[in-house]
């Protein structure tokens, strides 16, 4: 039988508990134990960014994080961003700029973009491109994603 551990953490603003396999990664915990499927599996190795979430105010790849390491921390996923009016501007920008095609990379992109916009007031195109360098997209060629993030940054006060 595999070793399990109880954790307590804040997920999208709500305090909760979970029992997880000690060797499980945070991505699998979110998708299978908690049932939030907005965060995606792209590669499981931290090379594509599809699994990006935010923990204690910083973005990271949930496939590279142990689920037990969520204990005592504050975790935000795309579902949390979607319910936050902060996320509205970003989502509207993604939609209006045509930054979504198949949409599979979109949750990870948005989580990373949101983090980037928190760190930089009005990031220019070069800063946004560097900020998104860990998120792969096969459909859009990135241009409209970058345009959307720059637009939100410009409108930010």
């Amino acid at each position, binding site marked *: 039988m*595999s*070793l399990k*551990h109880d954790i307590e953490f804040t997920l999208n603003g709500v305090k909760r508990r979970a029992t997880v396999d*000690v*060797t499980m*990664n945070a991505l699998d915990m979110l998708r299978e134990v908690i049932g939030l499927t907005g965060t995606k599996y792209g590669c*499981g*190795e*931290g*090379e594509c*960014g599809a699994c*990006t979430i935010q923990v204690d105010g*910083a*973005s*990271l*790849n949930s*496939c*590279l*994080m*142990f689920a*037990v*390491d969520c*204990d005592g921390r504050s975790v935000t996923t795309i579902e949390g961003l979607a319910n936050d009016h902060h996320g509205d501007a970003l989502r509207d920008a993604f939609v209006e700029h045509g930054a979504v095609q198949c949409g599979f990379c979109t949750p990870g992109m948005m989580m*990373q973009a949101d*983090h*980037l916009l928190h760190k930089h007031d009005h990031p220019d195109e070069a800063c946004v491109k*560097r*900020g998104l*360098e*860990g*998120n792969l997209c096969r459909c859009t060629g990135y241009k409209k994603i970058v345009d959307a993030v720059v637009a939100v940054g410009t409108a930010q006060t």
Partner: protein
Amino acid sequence: MSELKHYFAPTSLDQAVECLKDGDVTILAGGTDLTPQSQAGRIKFKQTLMNIRHIPQLSGITLEGKEIRIGALATITEIMEHPLIRQHLPVLVEACDHFASDQIRNAGTIGGNICNASPAGDTLIPLLVLDACVELASMPESKIYRHCMPLSTFFVGPGKTRKSLCELVTGVRIPIPEPGHVARFYKHGTRPALDISTISIGIAGTRKDGALTDVRVAFGAVAPTPTRATQTEKALEGQKLDAATIEKIAAIARDEVKPIDDVRATAWYRKEMIHNITKRILSHVAQA
């Protein structure tokens, strides 16, 4: 099925080194190396998984006398954004800036990087040319024992270090460079991000009369470990940096390294890049 039987998250260094006494412990810091490697079966869990992220002595970036001490848990992002590092060790900032991706920089730790001992480890090259020392802690008897080891002797093979199974890396110490100190880092890869270097080069020294003294040269991805290039250092030490000398040193650098062919590059190309980039770096240093 793994042997894993215990999960432990110590809140003090004493607790951690006590747990390490039997050596049957897998250490979890940022998780950016342990997670994919364990999921792929390349690393098998020992009996205990110890999460060291709650140990206060392992965090922080501080000035301690003439040294900067970086706690093992400092993330790559924390390092590259810290005013002390930006002011005194810009070559380390340069290496951190091209490290993987923002997401990995936010979680990956310097301690994890050092213990992972990748031959292409980006942060390891600047640390080598900055004469960094690794802080180690253990509990051989009933008291904690802490000591430092120069990073230049720490790596013994790909993924292998001098750290014993009972030891914990607690931080890294770097002497603050003297005035006149210059250091350069260059990572050669195929793209700006998420790239394991084809080769990387670190050069440091103190500028004096058009030459560099007290020189350190380190190469990455051309040997089983990140290495100091002692022959290149000898050739560079105290030499006035004119075009002919630079070419001579670059040629010695090319001959000194014995890289392998792998899926990222051939040995021939790596040697060529060591030559061309060493030449480029030294030319820039000479002109600066």
